[in-house]
């Protein structure tokens, strides 16, 4: 069984982002980029399934500018087998990404597509569900446990109030939540090896997909800041203040 893992290049999670002065978006020039953390978890889960003998090949796909090839190389250095870069400039929305992935799924015929549940830049949380809908496949989103057994995958999902387990017939789409696993670091020899792994390039046109954004981003702004209040000297004073404020 092949597994496809889509990965997105985003601003590194440890960087504090800044909104551009003209409100046209978030400043991305000269900012450290990295693989979306949820996607790293997806790569790790695919690797574990391969190591357990449940998968034969892991194909990493990224949609974006030429620089997204670096993100694919990172996944190859972790242990994925080959990469596909769908070259697209500018903003590509989740619906378009889902359509591009559908076209790649039609070529590769994987048993599983494992995606991060959301990207930490636009926080949309849509691509996996949309891909499942377009393919008419079942979905196991926000996974904290994935168990493949024969033609089925059992996915334990993080839901409001606790956990929910669903059983899906393969092929299926799974999206990862934070506690699914701890992604490995790529070793230096594996980083060297990754440079020789195959990385194909294609385009939305070649895949027959119109990737034009549907939504117009009118403006982007910083949230209105919250002012620091006062320091109190003791727990007793704190309780007094809260009573005066009428919140307890």
């Amino acid at each position, binding site marked *: 069984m092949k597994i496809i893992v889509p990965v997105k290049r985003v601003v590194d999670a440890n960087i504090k982002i800044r909104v551009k002065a003209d409100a046209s978006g978030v400043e991305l020039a000269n900012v450290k980029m990295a693989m979306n953390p949820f996607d790293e978890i997806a790569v790790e889960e695919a690797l574990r399934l391969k190591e357990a003998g449940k998968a034969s090949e892991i194909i990493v796909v990224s949609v974006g500018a030429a620089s997204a090839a670096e993100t694919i190389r990172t996944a190859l250095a972790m242990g994925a087998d080959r990469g596909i870069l769908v070259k697209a400039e500018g903003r590509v929305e989740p*619906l378009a990404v889902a359509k591009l992935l559908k076209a790649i799924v039609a070529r590769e015929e994987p048993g599983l597509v494992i995606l991060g549940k959301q990207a930490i830049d*636009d926080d949309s949380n849509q691509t996996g569900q949309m891909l*499942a809908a377009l393919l008419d496949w079942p979905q196991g989103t926000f996974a904290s446990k994935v168990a493949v057994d024969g033609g089925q995958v059992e996915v334990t999902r993080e839901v409001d109030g606790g956990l929910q387990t669903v059983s899906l017939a393969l092929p299926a789409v799974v999206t990862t939540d934070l506690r699914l696993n701890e992604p490995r670091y790529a070793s230096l020899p594996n980083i060297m090896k990754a440079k020789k792994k195959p990385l194909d390039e294609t385009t939305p046109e070649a895949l027959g997909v119109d990737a034009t954004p549907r939504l117009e981003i009118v403006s982007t702004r910083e949230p209105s800041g919250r002012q620091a209040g006062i320091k109190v000297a003791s*727990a007793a004073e704190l309780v007094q203040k809260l009573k005066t404020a009428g919140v307890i």
Partner: protein
Amino acid sequence: MATLLIADHDGVRLGDATAKALTAARQIGAPVDVLVAGDGVAAIAAQAASLAGVARVLVAEGAVLANLLAEPLAELVIRITDAYTVIAAPATSAMKNALPRVAARLDVMQISDVTKVLAADTFERPIYAGNALETVRSDEAKRVLTIRAAAFPASEAGDANAPIEALPAPAASSTSRFVGADLSTSTRPELGSARIIVSGGRALGSAEKFDAVVAPLADRLGAAIGASRAAVDSGYAPNDLQVGQTGKIVAPELYVALGISGAIQHLAGMKDSKVIVAINKDPDAPIFQIADYGLEEDLFTAVPAMMDALA
């Protein structure tokens, strides 16, 4: 044209998130129908019908809808979207799971986590964990929205008595099956709708101390219990208590942060609380920069002192 709001519920009662999302749906300006899907949900439908501003309640009942799995729920919604321009739902885990499936089937882009309705086609939503706010406009034939409930007040339950109409349930999915659920049972208020939340961080040091310190204060205040991601990852608290960008987004009247430093991802989940209290022995903890009342003290002495002051 009308707006369809998909209700979330736990099988027993209508979630508070739905009453809040209803407020956002009403701001769009069209009549709002509420869809209640589930198994044995007549009482929930009646509850929805009593909310102010509901034009009609549609009820679909059947075992296939019992756990609001995405596949059958999306199938149900798709059948009735012809009559609606806007399809909305609170951004709960069940709806975040199902709604993009609806959007993809309709070939429209979803707008996730709406925090403000600026016009019928223009919305504000947070990006980068709430570190920026984006205004987006959609000129598509239909608009699919998830609503961040914490950003809107709940629509009142009143004397309203909207008509209730039944819909047939969709056929069961042949590829997706509910196996089980492990939901925490608590007598405390639900985290997403609690008036007061007491939240614990890494400084608690262990699951035992988390329970011994956070729980009594929460119970004294009638509060829900929350936790930072650091506390959850360290195993001090179960993951469904996590407040933050990757957990629950909350906005209670009072948020008490115990031993929480205030990482960006935590602040994104609670910074819209009305009053924030921070108790931390580290004077440089970033949480103090957004707290209305800060107490620089070890939480293990401060919390017992608070309990005494509350007695």
